[in-house]
Each structure stands twice: as C-alpha cells, then as structure tokens.
C-alpha cells in the first residue's frame, strides 16, 4: 500500500460554498490561518462552475443555499466521474436522522455540525484528505434502499463514506449526550440550589410574618396600655411633629388622635408665650444633648383645644431611634391639685394669722389680765392690814376668800399661758436622760411630799430624743398628780418605769391612789376637765391637757388605765426616732417653704 503523501497546506485548494458572508469570512480566516488556499462561492451552481474551471482539493459546503443547495451540489459532484473523487464536507445542523440519510444519499464524504469547533473542523479536513488518498478506486458496494419517516432513500455511498459520516455523527451524538448530561447535572445542581434558596425564602418569609405578627401584637399591646394609662402620652419627633397621642391626651387636650397626629406640637398644646422657648429648647438639645427640663417632673401650663389653659405636671424623655430622636412626654392635668394647693395656702395664711392673734391674745392675758388680779390681791391685803382691828371673824373670812380666789385665778392664768406657750414654742430636740430628769422632778416635788409616806420605785429609763424643758413639764405633771392623788393613802406607792414597744419607748407612772372611773377616761386630757372636786383635790384642769399636747408634739401617744380606789397608770409613748414626729415634719415643711 502506498503511504499517502499530503503536501503542504498551501498546495491544498479548499473551495468554500456558503451564502452567509459572515460564515465565509469566519471559515476563510480559519483556513487561511492554517495555510490552506481558499476559494469561495455563494451557491451550488457557482461552485460547480468554479470546480469545472479548476479542480479543488476539497469542498466544504453549506446545505441551505439559494439556487442550488448543498445536497444537490454534492450529488452532482458524485455523479460526475471526473469530479467524484473530490471529498465533499457538508456543514449541517444535524437536526434529524433525515440530515444523515440525505448526506449518505448524496454521497457526502464527511459532516461538520454547526456550530463547529475550529480544531474539530481542521481535523475533519485532514481526515477527509487522508481517506481520499487511501481510497481504492475500484471497490464499489451495491446501493442500499432504506425507508425513513415514510420516504425511501437509495444509499449508494461507499463504506468508508458511511463510516466517515457515522463516526462524526456518533461522536457528535456522544458529545451532545455528554454535554446534555453536564447540562442536566448543572440543571440538577441549579434546581437543588434553587430549591434550597426557595426553602430558605419560604422560611424567611414565615419568620418575617411571625415577626410582623409579633410586632403588630406588641404595638397593639403598647397602644392598649398607653390608652389605658391615666397619664396623657404625647410623642414628638425632632421636627416637632406629633407622632403619638393616647386616649388620656385626647381627654386632657380635647384633640382627637386622628386630628392631631402629624401636626406641630408647638401650634397645638403649647401656649403662645412658651412657643419660642420650646423651639429653642429642642434645637439646643439636638445640637448639644443638653436639656434642663428633660427627665424630670416639671409643672407648666398647657393649651386645650378650646383655648383655655390648664396646669400640667409632665416629664419628657428623649429616646434615640436610629439617627433620630423621639421626645416622649407623660403628663397629667393638675388643675385640682393646684386649686387644693391654693386653698391650702389660703388656709395656712388664715391659720398663721389666727395664730398671731392668739399669740397677741395670750400676751395680753399674760400682761393685762394679771395686773388687775395683782391689784385686787394687793389692795385686799392692804385693806386687811388697815382695818384688821375693826373686822370680825366674818369680815376676815371674806377677805381671805378674796385672796384665795385671786390666787386660784392667778394659777389658772399661769397654767393657761403655759399651755398656750407649749403649743407655740419651737421644740428643741436633744438627747434627754429620763432617769436624771425624774430625779430632778422628784426633788422639785419635795414640798408636796412633806409628812407623806411615799414608796418610790424608779425602773431603768432610757435616754430619749426630745425637748428637755417640755419633757420635764410632762414629768412634773404626771409625778405631781401621782403624789396628789395618793394623798389619802397611808402608804403611797409610786412606780415609774419603761417598756420598749416596737419602734417606740413607753414610759409609765403608776400609783395606788384614788384612781378614776374609766368611763370618764376620754375627759382626762381635755382642757379644764376635772374628775375630782376642787375641795377634794386642788387643780386647774390643765395639767393633763398640757401633757397630751407635749407628747403629741413629740409624735407620741398618751393613755391611762385606772379603777376607782385602785390607783392609776399613765402611759406615754415616744417614737424611737423623733424625726418621724408630726412636729418635726411640720418644722421641716416650714423650713422647706422658707427656703423655696
């Protein structure tokens, strides 16, 4: 067998048959790059003419062309004995089995499927040229009849031609199959990804829906709570526009929520005289973060829809939302409180005036009432001296009665003044040693105890916080009473002691004296109230009223237990911390008002 010799590519004359100029340009470029000599024609008829004028080495032909298509051209070449050995490569879409059969029928030597790979195209050309060289000019198979899709075809192509046609067809099929598989895999992958993404999306949407639902519920809850609140709630953004307005705000200011939302705050609830200051304050806060009225309770006047002003107590808190501020204000109408405050102030002033009058009154009692009394006493005494020899027993008794009455009235005035003073005088709190105070008072009472048999029992007494002079007054009265009302006893017993209650100290003074009937206990501490006759036991009826007043001013209580002829026990309690006493609080209140 002769080894086929293929010359250099420039000796190979390639005839391109193609009606598309871009395809011609593309193919020509490809082949010329490889060094082939290239001729071009645009249809089968031109191609036949070109072939007859000069025999090409190989023909590459398109199929669909005007005037004469590729199949007809190929059949004409293969039918011509002088031309039949020139290999014809058909460029086909290879869309259907008919394409293959038509190719075989027209005895094409090879196929190239569109779109073609340049390397694949060049390999086909080389292969076709090789086959041409190897081909025996004598071998010839009988034509074969085949039926395809209802048409009959006579295939006279030679075996090598069929192989050449089938192999690229199969190759193409395998290639396409492979590509298809890859595409399927890619598709499957894509489908998988898409599915996963889809699922994610669905999950996200569900989550978002849940979140939105939760948010909606939360907002609904917040709105319900805000609407239930007694406090009016107003939210304003940093442009001064009202963003929220609850039901209490509707009631307080008369503006329905839907009418006020979106309106500037400064033009609705802020009285004209405060508007400039309000705007300046907001600007200042946004610039510096300083707001002297923020985050604290302030009292100010606000404007109702109907134009009247109302005092409100409010607190404003700025909340940062993203890059903006929302100013939240809670407030309530304090008209009633203000009214009450005004009334309280008026009443306090009236009370203070009344107190002053009372003071003036007691001063005048102290000075003016005592003077005539002293005169009566003095002149009665002088009269007695003057006429003593002229008076009989009766006359002396009259004068004595005058003196006694004057003395009694003097005591009464003195006690009344002490009582009044105890109510007015400021308390001076110090630590008071009760035991020592009791000893001192017992010493003071010595004159009253002359010729008396009294057994004293003084228990351990604590130090208390209180006004020493006033507590002394308390002891003088309680111990004095114990001494006085045990006078009929042959052996008097007086006991002073202390019991520690919860948060208070309770002092008691117990005697075995005449006692009193408990049904009159409520009268014990009243001014001028006496449970014994003046002839029985002397007294002005002021002592226990005074004791009660002092104990009350110390924040304590006083009470008594007794039975007729069974003695009496008086208890007074003092708070452990006197700062809790009403007097202390009143003093504090007074100071606060003075300072404010």
């Amino acid at each position, binding site marked *: 067998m002769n080894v086929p010799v293929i010359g250099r590519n420039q000796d190979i004359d390639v005839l391109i048959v193609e009606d598309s100029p871009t395809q011609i340009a593309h193919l020509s470029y490809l082949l010329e790059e490889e060094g082939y000599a290239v001729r071009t024609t645009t249809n089968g008829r031109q191609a036949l003419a070109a072939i007859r004028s000069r025999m090409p080495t190989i023909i590459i032909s398109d199929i669909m062309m005007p005037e004469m298509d590729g199949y007809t051209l190929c059949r004409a070449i293969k039918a011509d004995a002088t031309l039949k050995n020139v290999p014809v490569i058909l460029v086909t879409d290879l869309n259907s089995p008919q394409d293959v059969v038509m190719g075989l029928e027209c005895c094409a030597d090879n196929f190239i499927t569109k779109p073609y790979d340049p390397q694949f195209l060049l390999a086909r050309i080389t292969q076709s040229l090789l086959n041409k060289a190897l081909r025996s000019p004598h071998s010839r198979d009988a034509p074969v009849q085949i039926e395809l899709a209802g048409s009959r075809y006579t295939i006279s192509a030679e075996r090598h031609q069929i192989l050449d046609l089938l192999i690229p067809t199969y190759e193409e099929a395998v290639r396409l199959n492979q590509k298809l598989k890859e595409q399927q895999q890619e598709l499957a992958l894509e489908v998988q990804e898409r599915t996963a993404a889809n699922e994610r999306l669905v999950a996200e949407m569900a989550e978002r829906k849940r979140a939105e639902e939760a948010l909606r519920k939360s907002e609904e809850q917040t709105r319900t709570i805000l609407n239930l609140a007694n406090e009016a709630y107003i939210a304003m953004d940093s442009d001064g526009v009202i963003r929220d307005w609850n039901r209490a705000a509707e009631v307080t200011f008369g503006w329905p929520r839907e009418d006020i939302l979106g309106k500037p705050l400064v033009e609705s609830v802020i009285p004209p005289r405060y508007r400039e200051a309000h705007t300046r304050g907001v600007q200042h806060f946004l610039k510096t973060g300083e707001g002297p009225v923020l985050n604290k309770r302030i009292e100010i006047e606000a404007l109702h829809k109907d134009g009247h002003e109302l005092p409100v107590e409010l607190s404003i808190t700025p909340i940062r939302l993203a890059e903006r501020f929302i100013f939240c204000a809670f407030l309530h109408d304090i008209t009633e409180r203000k009214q009450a405050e005004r009334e309280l102030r008026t009443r306090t002033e009236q009370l203070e005036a009344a107190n002053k009058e009372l003071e003036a009154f007691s001063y005048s009692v102290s000075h003016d009432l005592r003077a005539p009394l002293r005169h009566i006493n003095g002149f009665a005494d002088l009269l007695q001296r003057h006429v003593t020899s002229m008076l009989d027993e009766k006359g002396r008794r009259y004068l004595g009665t005058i003196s006694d009455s004057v003395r009694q009235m003097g005591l009464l005035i003195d006690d009344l003044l002490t009582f009044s003073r105890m109510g007015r*005088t400021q308390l001076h709190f110090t630590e008071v040693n009760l035991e020592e105070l009791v000893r001192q008072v017992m010493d003071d009472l010595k004159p009253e105890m002359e010729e008396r048999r009294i057994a004293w029992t003084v228990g351990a007494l604590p130090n208390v916080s209180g006004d020493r002079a006033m507590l002394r007054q308390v002891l003088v009265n309680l111990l004095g009473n114990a001494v006085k009302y045990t006078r009929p006893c042959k052996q008097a017993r007086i006991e002073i002691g202390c019991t520690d209650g919860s948060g208070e100290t309770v002092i008691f003074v117990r005697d075995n004296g005449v006692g009193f009937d408990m049904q009159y206990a409520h009268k014990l501490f009243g001014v001028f109230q006496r449970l014994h006759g003046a002839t029985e036991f002397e007294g002005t009826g002021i002592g226990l009223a005074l004791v009660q007043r002092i104990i009350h001013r110390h924040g304590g209580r006083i009470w008594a237990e007794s039975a007729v002829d069974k003695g009496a026990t008086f208890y007074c309690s003092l708070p452990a911390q006197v700062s809790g006493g009403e007097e202390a609080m009143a003093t504090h209140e007074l100071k606060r008002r003075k300072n404010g």
Partner: protein
Amino acid sequence: MANLKRILLAEDNPKDVELTLTALDEHKLANEVVVVHNGAEALDYLYRRGKFSAREVGNPAVVLLDIKMPKVDGLEVLRMVKADPDLKSIPMVVLTSSREERDLARSYSQGVNAYVVKPVEFQEFIKAVSSLGIFWALVNEPPPRSAGKMKEPRSHSQP
C-alpha cells in the same frame, strides 16, 4: 442720808405705782423714789430735759422699768440707755407682768441687769420689790464714774 441716790420708777398704772411704793416703803428705804408714767418721761428724766431740765445732776441708783407703757415702752428706754456711754452703767431692772419668752429674751439681749415678774400674791410682791430696792439702792456698789458725779445736760440731746 442726803447722799442716797434716787430710785427711778417708770410705771404707767397708778395702782401698781402705789403698791410698788408701799412695797419699797415696807423696808423703810430712805432713797427718794421718782415716779414717771411713760418711757418718754423716763428718758426726759435721765437726760434732764423737759420738766426735768431743772433737776439736780446725777444718775439714779436704779431704774425700775415696766415694759408696757404708753408713748415709749420700757424696752425702748432700756435700748437707749444701754446704747448711751454716759447712761449705760445705770442698773436697769425690768419689773413687769409679762413672763413671755420674747420679752425676756429682748430684755437680756439689750443688757438688762435684772428681770422680775411681778408676783400676783401681794406678800411675794412686797418681798420681791423691797429686796430689789435693798439690793440695788443699798447693797450694790455703783460704778465709780456715776458715784456722785454730776451729769451735764448735753446740747445735742436737747429736743
């Protein structure tokens, strides 16, 4: 006895004057008691002006001063006396019905020498007043400057 200095009694109520004089008399004090009926008269006496412009020179041994008096009250007299370098050494005794704290406080803050509340009981009143008289007029040694020294009327205090 001519050397005994006077006692000045400033008291607007004639009954009190009588009782006070009786009380002072009880111990037979030989000092002359000059009675004035209000603060203005008391100051006239001390400054030797008005109806007292002709009085003999010299500060009293003691001034017994009621607080509540017409025109110028006792506390005002006390304040002026204690503010005057020539008068402030005179013993000033407030003799009053008032036991009010503020009267006490004001009296002491203005330099009163004694504060006596007139007792209602006449016997006690006698005791109190007479012991006052004895103490200030007889027992107490007056400051050297005022002893027997004559006080000249001062031109600037003339009305």
